[in-house]
């Protein structure tokens, strides 16, 4: 059951990263969430053959990741893990979209390959931005930000609950699996009926645990919302962060500044 153990490690690593302290970590979660959404929209708003205009947009995850001390290894590991579905759907583009698109050194490249490459770039950009967001923000601040921005409270609270009890439940499941494996000799996988009773037991334990938590919370005066660890304040710094990035995205999206800079530099050099 490597998958269970892996996921504990995966969530644990990102969770640990979110507790470190940096300029980016200290920003208001609302600012980071909104800017990231604007970023994602900017990335996917290009047409399916866009490649060059997408690349400067890597700046956003790059700046956030570097200044927030997010190890590149964490991000790349997760990119590889999530790639199959996107690659599977994208690989059909060269098959069905065979119109010639460009000629590079005498070799004709079909439009499908261009759009496949575009999909891969989009994938890397969107996924790394999302992972960096969670690594420099953390789950609890993101939950409060979502609530402040209008998500239903009941949803936000149970999202926080899910996150808090994920580890507990996964570790419980891991122990049950290990116990089952030790009692079943060489059979490595469960049969359906064993699966039913094992997962059923897990479910019953979950219900009982939830009942205990619920009673304990009521006994301690739970009034329908979690107390905040630190109060959220939207300061000038958060506003500045948002404005700078939104201007950058708009510049990349609606002008050709990057090429102009390149031309100026080339002219200056020669």
């Amino acid at each position: 059951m490597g998958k269970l153990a892996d996921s504990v490690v995966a969530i644990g690593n990102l969770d640990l990263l979110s507790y470190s302290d940096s300029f980016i970590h200290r920003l208001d979660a609302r600012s980071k969430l909104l800017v990231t959404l604007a970023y994602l929209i900017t990335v996917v708003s290009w047409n399916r053959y866009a490649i060059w205009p997408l690349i400067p947009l890597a700046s956003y995850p790059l700046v956030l990741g570097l200044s927030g001390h997010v190890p590149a290894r964490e991000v790349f590991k997760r990119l590889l893990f999530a790639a199959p579905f996107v690659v599977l759907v994208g690989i059909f583009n060269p098959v069905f979209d065979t119109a010639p698109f460009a000629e590079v050194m005498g070799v004709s490249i079909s439009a499908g390959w261009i759009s496949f490459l575009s999909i891969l770039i989009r994938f890397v950009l969107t996924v790394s931005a999302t992972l960096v967001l969670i690594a420099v923000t953390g789950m609890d601040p993101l939950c409060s930000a979502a609530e402040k921005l209008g998500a239903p409270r009941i949803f936000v609270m149970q999202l926080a609950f899910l996150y808090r009890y994920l580890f507990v439940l996964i570790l419980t499941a891991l122990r049950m699996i290990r116990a089952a494996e030790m009692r079943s000799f060489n059979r490595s996988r469960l049969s359906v009926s064993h699966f039913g009773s094992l997962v059923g037991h897990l479910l019953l334990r979950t219900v009982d645990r939830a009942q205990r938590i619920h009673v304990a919370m009521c006994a301690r005066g739970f009034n329908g919302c979690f107390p905040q660890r630190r109060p959220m304040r939207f300061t000038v710094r958060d506003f500045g962060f948002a404005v700078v990035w939104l201007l950058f995205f708009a510049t990349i999206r609606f002008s050709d500044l990057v090429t102009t800079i390149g031309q100026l530099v080339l002219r200056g050099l020669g």
Partner: protein
Amino acid sequence: MHMADALISPVVGAGGWAATLGLAGYSARIIKKKIEEPNIALMGVGAAFVFAAQMINFSIPGTGSSGHLGGGLILAALLGPHAAYLAMASILTIQALFFADGGLLSLGCNVFNLAFFPCFLAYPLLFRRLTGGTPSRARLSWVSVVTAVVGLQLGAMAVVIETQLSGISALPLREFLLLMLPIHLAIGVVEGLATAAVLMFVHQARPDVLHFTEAKPPSSKPLIFGLLGCAVLVGAVVSWFASGQPDGLEWSMEKTSGSAELESPDTAVYSTAADVQKKVSFLPDYKLPNNDETVTVENENTASSWPAVDVGTSLSGIVGIALTLLLAGLIGLGIRRRSSVQNQS
């Protein structure tokens, strides 16, 4: 079958978000109204249970492969449709944030595909109606399989429709459906059997924790709501097809496949949409002054053709990009230095 951000367009992403937020608000209201003291602990910990249980595999006899539990149906059976919808949404949020399964922008679509269909259509309309209050073991198991299959097929179909509307993938509708539906038929059967195994156990041991064993028969309200949802879905899909067909190659492909409702509508809505499309889908020309080798993609039959595309690997573009990324890297490192110096002092 999580949609990824890389495969959707902003319009489809926004549509998914609108539908999901609307349903979440509706569910939250119903939960608050129906239960004076909603057991949020059960919702949250129940979602964590599904998360963990989905990673436990069992062997499928005679195939050598393995299967696992599907989320929506078991949560609906435990919590009821409205709470299950919110719980599924939170599971998908965690998957998008921590595992890059799906993405933030496509989260709306994913919640719609994987939570709306099983919780609001398959569970109230099929599962509750077919099981009755105290079903036999055999009945519980075939009803679970049927419900899981229907929910998953609808979800898979929605994935195909959303991908088509986004126009990033070039897979034609028919081929994509032929690829997705059979795979998800098999997955649905396996998930249904897994769900049935768990439900049978729990039903025998503690029937009181299951939502569907309540004596009260299901009202017809979910049915009306479900049908309304279908109508809105179909309406939205058809109108999207009519107005915002995203690009020419897709368009001509659809035309050659001979579907009647895909005729080009010559309306004001269409031309406005095409105008907007034109404005937001330009490709800047990366071109040095003397580089004349341009290759144009021909887009007959469409109002939304983009300007001539020059993919000559022109130097200025690359230099500009390299400088931008270098600058970004320096800024990132600069901030990092500064904040660590601040921490030490």
